[in-house]
């Protein structure tokens, strides 16, 4: 083998990719990093402030509340949507016209733009004219998502479940279809109960699609913006104001670019860290023994 370098021209072939990545990711990200360490008064007047914005942000109670809310929301989303999605996938017909019908029906919520989903539920939940809102009120339940924080939370969660459970269900459905029939036959012969079939055959085979499902749902729900913004506007009070809305208020509403940039980076790192933890935990379960 000859390891002697004749010339380095091949590096020029990497240049287009480097430029593309630079303009699409590195430069915008570094701009944010740049903002996060400066106090900017106007275009020619910026002061380097080091880690001050980071310290500020981490001790900001509005942000801490928002972060806590965000974790509770994402946790609830995963706890409801993952089991529910699996359950729906298990109950779906495996072949024939009904199977196609179910697939199309499930796909519909996924095809609706996010702010439209917010609008749909905003109207659906209204106590005066909304189908759900006025129904709940007519059966004696005083439901009003605009004034009651619990009701607002309930509505936002329900909306997200409606919007995204389909994704988990479709992923699991495809995972289930990939299990050869021989496993079910063997389980029948081995006198396995329905629970044992689920626990030892279906669930292990669903693991790879569930890794994707959990990660997608965590990242998406952690970055949710349009739907609650349209539905509740973050209210009542700030009870349904999640992280991205807080960030937008800070960056665009108050034009605090420095703190907002620091916030963005922390936000990004949290998503990265939690996703990594999920991924490691789930794949670690597999590598035992």
């Amino acid at each position: 083998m000859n390891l002697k370098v004749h010339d380095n021209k091949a590096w020029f072939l990497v240049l287009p990719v480097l430029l593309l990545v630079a303009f699409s990711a590195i430069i915008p990200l570094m701009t944010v990093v740049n903002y996060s360490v400066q106090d900017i008064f106007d275009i020619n007047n910026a002061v380097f402030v080091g880690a001050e914005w980071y310290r500020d942000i981490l001790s900001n109670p509005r942000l801490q509340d928002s972060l806590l809310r965000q974790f509770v929301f994402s946790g609830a989303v995963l706890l409801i949507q993952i089991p529910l999605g699996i359950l729906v996938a298990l109950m779906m017909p495996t072949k024939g016209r009904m199977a196609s019908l179910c697939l199309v029906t499930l796909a519909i919520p996924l095809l609706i733009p996010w702010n439209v989903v917010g609008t749909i539920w905003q109207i659906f939940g209204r106590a005066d004219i909304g189908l759900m809102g006025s129904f709940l009120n007519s059966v004696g339940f005083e439901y009003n998502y605009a004034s009651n924080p619990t009701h607002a939370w309930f509505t936002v969660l329900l909306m997200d479940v409606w919007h995204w459970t389909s994704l988990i269900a479709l992923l699991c459905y495809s995972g289930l279809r990939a299990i050869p029939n021989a496993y079910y036959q063997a389980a029948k012969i081995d006198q396995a109960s329905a629970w044992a079939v689920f626990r030892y055959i279906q669930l292990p085979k669903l693991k790879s699609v569930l890794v994707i499902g959990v990660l997608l749902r965590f990242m998406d729900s952690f970055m949710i913006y349009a739907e609650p913004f349209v539905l509740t506007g973050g209210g009542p009070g700030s009870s349904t104001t999640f992280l991205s809305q807080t960030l937008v208020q800070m960056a665009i509403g108050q034009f605090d670019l420095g703190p907002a940039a620091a916030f963005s980076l922390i936000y990004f790192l949290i998503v990265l860290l939690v996703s990594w933890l999920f991924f490691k935990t789930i794949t670690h379960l597999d590598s035992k023994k």
Partner: protein
Amino acid sequence: MAEIKLEALAHSYLDKPSKAHDYAIRAMTHTWEQGGAYALLGPSGCGKSTLLNIISGLLQPSEGKVKFNDKDVTGLQPDERNIAQVFQFPVVYDSMTVFDNLAFPLRNLKYPKAKIDKKVNEIADVLELRDVLHRRANNLTADEKQKVSMGRGLVRDDVSAILFDEPLTVIDPHLKWKLRRKLKQIHEKFNITMVYVTHDQLEASTFADKIALMYQGQIVQFGTPQELFEQPAHTFVGYFIGSPGMNIIEVAIDQHNAVFDDVVIPLNAALIDDGVTISNNIKIGIRPEFVEVVDAASADSYLCDVVDVENLGTYKILTVVLGRQQIKVRINEDQTVPIDKAHITFPEKYLKLYIDEYLVKENIA
């Protein structure tokens, strides 16, 4: 522990079967006795696996009944029939260890832990799985996976029967022989009815006391390996069993002789009655092992051309032409090989007559 009876059993995968050809299993009545070791032998697509799945309850037959010890189980699921089945390709629960795999059927039946440990260890010993007992099943080789698959069928000693659907397909040849011996030992030890599906006659005859030979959805013969060899009840049995298969020649009957291409072969008079003339599908058959090569012409010998000699080590296969028919003859290595021309005879005892493909039994009366 059970005697398995199939009564007027038939199965079709079509909704409205009309012709005989629509049936994967054509009407059959058959009994597998308690404690027997049986092989279900036949070519691919003859309905062996279908029949096995009907016995285990994975498949509901279109017609007829399945009975275990005279109890009708036709409508029952496999778990209600308490039966074990091993599939052609290994099915292991890959999230579990080998131990958990083997223990799975016992745990489902809520056996006490001590008994599970004992049974699993016993089977692991028999199948030589002890070294991998605590490994995860998805890291095993194909051989080991199939052994685990078989082991799950064997751990329960109270089953009505154990059904094997070509279980050694993926196993290495040198292990096949060993595992067949193991199965036989397990059979002798626990006295469980075993039905073993295969398309390999050697596998069938080493495992089973009795072989059921299936052809086009029917059991065409049920008997010991020797019976299948010496008295093929159907031309297909003659063709399928033996290597090479039986020589089968289409003939016409003239009085007590079989005639083809100007060759006249006298038949045992006891075989022929008036019924023979009714059919025009008449064949004679003789195994290559039973055709005799004689040194000189005699009254009952036929002169034929030798066209090919295959040397297979301990024996040779001659291909000779008589009339326009090719006939295979097996001769031992110590016999002299005739050159160009050979005189052959057809011993009457081994010359079989088939009408409409079925054997004509000697007419004693």
